[in-house]
């Protein structure tokens, strides 16, 4: 049963709890574009893979990628759309790419919106949303700084059973 620690430990006087509160649950992901998963339309030359830190963001439904990283990797820009609000027009670039979490043996292939993380001074270069979390159990221990992502894949784990118990309450 794959399990991944996404929290923080005490380091140089900073408690794991504090570091987790400041940075948020973080895991390493690989971002790339696999030509074989591009509707049969090869992209030449093959694009590089970047290993970057990603924030597990329970506040967003869909995963996304840093806009600057998308440009660096030359991810195929397949959709551009605008939304209008009181602040005026906002343009959103949407890329076709793959996000892979090797430690959990799971991969996303599809559309990823380009969001301005690096340009805004954020350390993460991707956001992992609830679309990812629906496959896992996340245990957030704010007092210790530990965050565990657990896959109940292939077994009915006690985490899964516990989750169901809470869901019924």
């Amino acid at each position, binding site marked *: 049963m794959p399990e991944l620690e996404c929290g923080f430990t005490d380091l140089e006087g900073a408690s794991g709890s504090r570091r987790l509160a400041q940075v948020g649950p973080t895991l390493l992901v690989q971002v790339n574009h696999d030509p074989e998963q591009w*509707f*049969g*339309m090869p992209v030449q030359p093959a694009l590089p893979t970047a290993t970057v830190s990603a924030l597990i963001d329970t*506040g*967003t439904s*869909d995963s996304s990628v840093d806009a600057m990283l998308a440009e660096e990797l030359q991810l*195929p*820009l*397949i*959709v*551009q*759309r*605008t*939304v*209008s*609000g*009181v*602040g*005026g*027009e*906002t*343009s959103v670039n*949407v890329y076709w790419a793959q996000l*892979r979490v090797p430690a959990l*043996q*799971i*991969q*996303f*292939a*599809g*559309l*990823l919106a380009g969001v301005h993380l690096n340009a805004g001074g954020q350390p993460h270069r991707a956001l992992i949303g609830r*679309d*990812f979390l629906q*496959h896992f159990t996340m245990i957030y221990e704010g007092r210790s700084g530990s965050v565990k992502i657990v896959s109940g*894949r292939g077994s009915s784990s006690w985490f899964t059973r516990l989750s169901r118990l809470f869901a019924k309450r």
Partner: protein
Amino acid sequence: MKLRSGISDNFVEECSIYDSRRSDLERDHMGEYVLIQRDGLVAIFPTLQSARENAKMRFPHGPYLISRIVEGFSPSDKGEWKFTNA
């Protein structure tokens, strides 16, 4: 459709327009870029740049959708997470 910031857009309608014309687009304009506005399909362009420029000129305040025309693709296809063996 509501975004996290609270602003609304017309993405669902624009995707619906794309899907309704999808077979024609894939047959006649593969690899090109389509500009869609909530009232319908506006035009087809050979490059993303030309589509962007035209869209900004016609709809300076948006909203609009530009999508590359790819076989088997719809802008409403989000993609999915799948477990791998490696």
